[in-house]
């Protein structure tokens, strides 16, 4: 059975179908297969670190986990993670809203289209972190600077994807919407946004990945003044104190949060939307 089913099978009479058995479902489940691989990688890490036998250069999985539990218990790591998350939520939301406004302006007016095309082609290739020195000059040492670079990291890829999605909406669906007398914002939100949702979701995912990376990178650069830095600052600090297993624990936290958002939050949205609609590409 290699053919990918496109229908949910609900309309097929019972004589034509049977329920899959547990091991068939397990094998079909990407999550189960990935979990297996993850366990394999963890074992490989432990074995390799035992061979290297140098906790300063390459701490073992067990040391890392022990350190991880310790800083989670002491509340240090959750506090740092929370600090990072608080910043990113604000900055990500800001970037997405800015991107949305730009795109709506772009599809409704000709100058808007030109503006968006010029801005995205200029700023999309520019790594956001390159703006940090300038941001520090303008906004000083602190979170406004980081928020500025993250908004920059999010806006352009998200705007570009929403715009691509809007432009790709079939003329038939547009005609259906206009046939019902929809125009302006009603047309955008009831026809264009859902029809372009696969692209919008892709944009949101890329935007998330960019912003998360940018945040950690920016925090590595400073945090110097404020004692309450985020995860990036935690990693930097622990490296200076030569607690390398805690550096690993910090990196692990960055990965876990990234994977959780990608694999749980976005996955949830995806299952409920584009997958259900048969629009996933």
């Amino acid at each position, binding site marked *: 059975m290699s053919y990918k089913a*496109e*229908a*949910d*099978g*609900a*309309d097929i009479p019972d004589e034509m179908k049977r329920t899959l058995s547990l091991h068939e479902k397990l094998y079909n489940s990407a999550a189960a297969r990935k979990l297996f691989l993850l366990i394999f990688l963890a074992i490989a890490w432990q074995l390799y670190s035992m061979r290297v036998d140098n906790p300063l250069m390459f701490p073992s999985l067990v040391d890392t986990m022990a350190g991880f539990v310790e800083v989670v218990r002491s509340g240090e790591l959750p506090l740092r993670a929370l600090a990072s998350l608080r910043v990113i939520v604000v900055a990500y939301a800001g970037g997405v809203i800015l991107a949305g406004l730009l795109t709506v302006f772009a599809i409704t007016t000709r100058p808007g289209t030109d503006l968006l095309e010029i801005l995205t082609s200029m700023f999309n290739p520019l790594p956001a972190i390159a703006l940090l020195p300038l941001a520090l000059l303008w906004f000083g040492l602190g979170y406004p600077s980081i928020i500025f670079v993250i908004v920059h990291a999010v806006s352009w890829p998200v705007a570009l994807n929403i715009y691509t999605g809007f432009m790709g909406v*079939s003329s*038939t*669906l547009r*005609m*259906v919407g*206009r*046939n*019902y*007398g*929809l125009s302006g914002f009603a047309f955008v939100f*009831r*026809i264009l946004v*859902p*029809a372009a*949702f696969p692209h919008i979701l892709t944009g949101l995912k890329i935007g998330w990945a960019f912003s998360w990376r940018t945040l950690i990178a920016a925090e590595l650069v400073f945090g110097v003044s404020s004692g309450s830095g985020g995860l990036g600052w935690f990693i930097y600090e622990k490296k200076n104190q030569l607690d390398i297993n805690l550096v690993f624990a910090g990196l692990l936290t960055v990965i876990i949060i990234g994977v959780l958002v990608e694999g749980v939050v976005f996955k949830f949205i995806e299952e409920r*939307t584009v997958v*259900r*609609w*048969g*629009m996933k590409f």
Partner: protein
Amino acid sequence: MADNVPSCAGAFLEVRNLTLQYKTDRYLVTATRDVSFDVGESDRLVLLGPSGCGKSTLLKAIGGFLKPAGGSIALNGRPIKAPGADRGIVFQEFDQLLPWKTARENIVFAIRQTRNASREEAVEEAQALLEKVSLARVGDSYPHALSGGMKQRVAIARCLAIKSKIILMDEPFASLDALTRQKMQEELLYLWTETKFTLVFVTHSIDEAITLGTRIIVLSPHPGRVVDEFSVDWTRGPEEYGESASLKERITQILFRDIDYVI
């Protein structure tokens, strides 16, 4: 059966000397030239012509999606300026259902956007319409899980749901298998007997035109022009069935007269 029926005065839909053009980057394409016809209330008018003769373009212009380069279109005496729900449309394309809504929600959405109906009323009405096109069972399925014929049936139900007096259909059965197509044609005729909506139906099939139309307008290829017009006598009995065969022959001759290439 009378040829070239004179147009009745003050027809429901009046198309006068309509010329439709597309501007591409390099060319100005004329899709139809100087097309005139009238559609009376409760007529089932068929626009018949070979592929590329501008049938879809004509329907899109009546739908209000395309500004005439010349001539005029008037519905109920008022010129058509923009799209609107006073004209129900079934498009040629299979992707006309909103893929993010179930079959039922597609119909509910159409009702709620175009008429003053509560959600409960709309849902109830949608269910009744789904039953009418024998799709009650798949109301909760999303369009991607439906076959081509099912999608077109939902599109027809959705189009009936907005209760417009005129319905425009663009080759809705063109890509269906012969059996399904015949069933859908029968279904459409049955639905028509219920509310007697005015129908403008586009097709390139002579058989389909004769099966469905009370009047047939034959268009010439590229650019589309009206070459002839027929009325189909629906009061005839089965013993006169031979007439429809001769009608088919005459239309075939007219269509081929205008085609200066060999198929």
